[in-house]
């Protein structure tokens, strides 16, 4: 998946759940836009779609704090 694809997939994921992300830089943690169960579902969705695996040490709040942060995380981990 390209970085563009990852971004589109994340946006679509939250749009489908009625929780559109207002801005790529908005702090999702402080704003409460999504909850922790949403995060776990998202990780499952992207790991399956992108055929990648996110190690435990990368499962931090900062890596999921915003859309930009998540795109960076998954784009870095996608297979070459």
């Amino acid at each position, binding site marked *: 998946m390209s970085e563009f694809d990852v971004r589109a997939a994340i946006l679509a994921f939250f749009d489908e759940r009625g929780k559109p992300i207002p801005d790529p830089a908005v702090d999702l*943690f402080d704003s409460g836009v999504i*909850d*922790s*169960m949403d*995060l*776990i*579902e998202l*990780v*499952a969705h992207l*790991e399956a779609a992108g055929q990648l695996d*996110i190690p*435990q040490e990368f*499962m*931090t*709040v900062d890596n*999921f704090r915003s859309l930009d942060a998540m795109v960076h995380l998954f784009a870095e981990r996608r297979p070459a």
Partner: protein
Amino acid sequence: MTWLHQQCSGVDIWRRSGTGARLLLLHGLYGDHRYFAEAAAAEALAGMDLLAVDLPGFGATAPVDEPVLDQMARKVRPLCAGGAQPVFLVAHSMASSIAARLLDPAAGLISLEGNILPPHLKVSDRLKGLDATAFASEFSRLQRMAETVVKWETRVADAERRRDLAQSYQLCSADTVRRVAVAVNDDVRSGVLAGFLSAHILPMLTIYGGASEYGGTQAEMARMFPGMEFACIAAAGHFPMLDAPAQTYDAIGNFVRKVLS
């Protein structure tokens, strides 16, 4: 004042002994005794006999067979035999279904963001929609993300404390969590839980977080359970005992003293 680890009839408990009323502290899904650690230092609970329980299948206590809620309550029931001490049940989230089965020996029930009405079932609704394989995969992911989940869902500022709380996710199994979540969901939706609460005339207090969705269900709770009291902990979400321990334990201590006066 520290907790002393004991075992009673195969149930692991952490106890801060006291000569006053006994408080049975029952955690929610994925949790264990450590979610009530701050209770020992709470001035409002001074002198009370605190028992923080690892419910069967969580923490250090072995799981039980079906029917899971009845069996969990059966294992915990001996802890309610406080002798001359009155026993109060403090039930967080899914533990409402356990506490509801222990009301006959209790002097009162304190529901902490308890799963009592269908709107409280967001988590178990989701888990119920997953088959065993899908849930096992998600559970594994949840365990990897446990510290992130604790940070996202609570207002605990101390990183070491969050790491401690995250340990409870490693001590339960996907099978137990799924069985309990499905049973709790059925317990509420079928009306069985409400039936238990309605059948017993005893003092009840519901504590909810001001930042939680549970506050919106107060009116319905008051209608279904006349006489139920309510306390809102403004600075808290779904984990009042972690987010605002002093205020939460003040509410509990005041309620217990009022009932016993």
